[in-house]
């Protein structure tokens, strides 16, 4: 990243960002590509794109939860900000492959992020993996915008850019909310492991409600904010198919389908992340004795939850905020084409593209729900409504041990995607009379961290190997060092004479 900045600075003769505007395009094509990739990798590490993400799930959870909220809300967004600035401000219309690379990395980050999140039972690590997923979704918007820009579709590029930026905002809101929720759960129960929680909705009703709002939002379900930006991303990707005649257009619908897979897996993951800790019976004494978060934390979560609702329902108002950005980057304002029916509905921004109204869905949904509830109440008036124990197959007493665990919940997906996870399991049973009556069973299961094992470990080993060989020249002998200095001096002199 530093190298890339230096290249740009050398061309601009300045370190002032204002002078960098559109500067990238003045470089020769090869340099452009190199500078672009250097920036992408540099900011990518910060944003946590796959395969540069491995620090993120380790770093975010160990911070106090309010700091984690800031880290995933703001800190990784500096990477996104840097990319937006570089891609759309420093460079003019980029070569086509840059957008394709960004889109592909976006898809990979989104999918792998959510797949690893599914296997995680530490609430905060799970959320950290979801940050990777959401960065991926943002990059899908950015990548599409770059491709459109390369193809000369300014309008579509602006729509895709708005989709990416809107998702950036949304992610900051719901992820902040979820981390704060995880924080109050941590404070209430003293554990981050979901398998030791359960039934918290009774003990911590406010936290549960807010966490539910965040879960619905991050799963991209209507009418909350995650849905709006994912919908915009779909529209941008769909419009992409018509934007070019070449085979590259196949990547848009495929990316769209993988976005659908990502969103659906995220929903599955948040059924787990909400259902296991908050619903049914407590799985440990700590969870049974959990205390609701203090008022200050509840207020914080309340504000962010309200933000999720507002960004969802008021989408047609919020898209106007992106006009200055798109007009600076692309010289276009698209918010008016994204709003239909006098601000009632969002439009796709491309001709007849399609509309959606989150506010309409919410209002109508509440109205219909009310009517149905009243009708049901009238119809079943006088009928008995009793509370009874859950069906326990006739065995006496249902306990928390009978409940599905987080591991069990994600088991089908672990089996289906076993090529990626390479799960390992170990069962040890001890028995006295017959193997059918074990006295104790120990079960262990984990998944292989593929990136660490197949990418970073070889890298680390080769660096260590290189370092070991280098050690040979660092013999500690002063004569040798003097010789090195002398040779270097001669070489520099020769270089100077020739130059």
């Amino acid at each position, binding site marked *: 990243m530093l190298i890339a900045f230096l290249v740009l600075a050398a061309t601009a003769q300045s370190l002032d960002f204002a002078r960098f505007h559109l500067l990238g395009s003045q470089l020769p094509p090869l340099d452009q590509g190199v500078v672009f990739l250097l920036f992408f990798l540099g900011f990518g590490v910060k944003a946590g794109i796959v395969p540069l993400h491995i620090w993120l799930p380790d770093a975010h959870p160990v911070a106090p939860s309010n700091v984690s909220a800031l880290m995933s809300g703001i800190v990784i967004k500096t990477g996104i900000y840097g990319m937006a600035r570089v891609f759309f401000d420093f460079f003019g219309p980029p070569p086509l492959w840059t957008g394709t690379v960004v889109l592909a990395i976006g898809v990979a980050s989104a999918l792998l992020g959510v797949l690893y999140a599914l296997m995680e039972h530490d609430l905060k690590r799970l959320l950290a993996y979801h940050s990777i997923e959401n960065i991926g979704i943002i990059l899908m918007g950015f990548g599409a915008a770059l491709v459109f820009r390369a193809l000369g579709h300014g309008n579509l590029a602006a729509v895709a850019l708005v989709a990416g930026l809107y998702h950036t905002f949304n992610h900051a809101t719901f992820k902040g909310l979820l981390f704060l929720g995880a924080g109050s759960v941590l404070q209430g129960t003293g554990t981050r492991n979901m398998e030791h929680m359960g039934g918290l909705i009774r003990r911590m009703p406010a936290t549960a409600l807010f966490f539910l709002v965040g879960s619905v939002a991050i799963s991209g379900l209507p009418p909350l904010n995650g849905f709006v930006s994912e919908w915009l991303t779909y529209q941008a990707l769909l419009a992409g198919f018509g934007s070019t005649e070449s085979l590259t257009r196949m990547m848009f619908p495929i990316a769209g389908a993988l976005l659908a897979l990502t969103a659906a897996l995220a929903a*599955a993951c948040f*059924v787990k992340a909400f259902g296991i800790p908050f619903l049914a019976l407590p799985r440990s004494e700590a969870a049974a004795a959990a205390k609701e978060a203090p008022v200050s934390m509840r207020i914080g979560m309340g504000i962010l939850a309200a933000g999720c609702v507002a960004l969802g329902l008021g989408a047609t108002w919020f898209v106007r905020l992106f006009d200055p950005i798109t007009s600076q980057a692309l010289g276009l304002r698209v918010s008016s084409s994204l709003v239909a029916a006098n601000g009632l509905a969002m439009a796709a921004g491309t001709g007849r593209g399609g509309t959606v109204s989150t506010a309409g869905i919410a209002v109508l949904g509440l109205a219909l729900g009310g009517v149905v509830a009243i009708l049901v109440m009238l119809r079943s008036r006088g*009928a008995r409504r009793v509370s009874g*124990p859950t069906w326990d197959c006739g065995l006496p007493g249902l306990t928390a041990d009978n409940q599905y665990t987080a591991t*069990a919940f*994600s088991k089908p997906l672990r089996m289906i995607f076993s090529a990626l996870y390479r799960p390992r399991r170990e069962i040890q049973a001890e028995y006295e009379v017959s193997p059918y009556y074990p006295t104790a069973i120990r079960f262990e299961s984990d998944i292989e961290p593929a990136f660490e094992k197949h990418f970073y470990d070889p890298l680390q080993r080769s660096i260590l190997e290189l370092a070991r060989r280098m050690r040979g020249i660092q013999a500690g002998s002063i004569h040798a060092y003097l010789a090195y200095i002398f040779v270097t001096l001669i070489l520099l002199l020769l270089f100077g004479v020739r130059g």
Partner: protein
Amino acid sequence: MQLLLLLAISPLISGLIKTLKARMQTRRGPGVLQFYRDLYKLFRKGMVIPDTASWIFTAAPYVVFVTTAMAGLMLPMTSTEAPLGLFGGVLAIVYLLGLGRFFLALAGMDTGSSFGGLGSSREMTISALAEPAMMLAVFTVAIAANSTNLSEVARSAVGQNWRFFAPAQMLACAALYVVLIAETGRIPVDNPATHLELTMVHEAMILEYSGPHLALIEWAASMKQLVLMTLLVNVFWPFGLASGPSVAGALGGLGWLLLKLGLLSCSIVLVETTNAKLRLFRVPEMLSVAFTLGTLALVSTFLF
């Protein structure tokens, strides 16, 4: 209007499928109207609510019912104009059904029984894998119509009735058909008639529901089936869709709709009768076939 239509004919289609299936298996089976009687009875019954459950359990039936009904309103049923076309198109339908499923899965976990968790886990897994195939099929038609709004899709399809024989349309239709089977919980993915613990998916999630709540869920499941079936028939065979709001057009459209749904029901019954239920871990293979079909559909729009 369409809301009433949706509420009224969804139990009919479910009843029809049940009866036809029984006849195929040389049983007499319940009458076509049995589903109405079931609903009527359930709404008058009392309820037992598990004492482990929270407000999620009570709220879920309403959420499922309302989201499914709204999804149905975004769909052109008898005419090309969907009542709620402005509020959302096919993406909104998929995601509204997703919202309902989200709450139902939570409700399954809320009971504290292992069946609930089992059902939720399987339901979310299967639907997650069905989603990309569904999207690809939907994209194929959306790209042909240049819109995700289903009224637009239907308008562009009307008048090209034989478009179905284009390779892209046939492949997308096949993909959506597989998704339909998976999403409505039919054999070979799930068996709506079983309560055997090893094979339940949808039934396991709703095992603890009773009375009016169960009625709402069953009705919503039947509406969801109708919504997906109508999506399939009206997008791929837009025969008889009225193009404007007129009584004659609406009646004609209704006739055609029932005919098409009837035919689709027959094919579903055939599939259900001639196939055995798949093992849960074979289901992904079936869905990846659907995904491949969807991809091929897109590639062939490119080629032809």
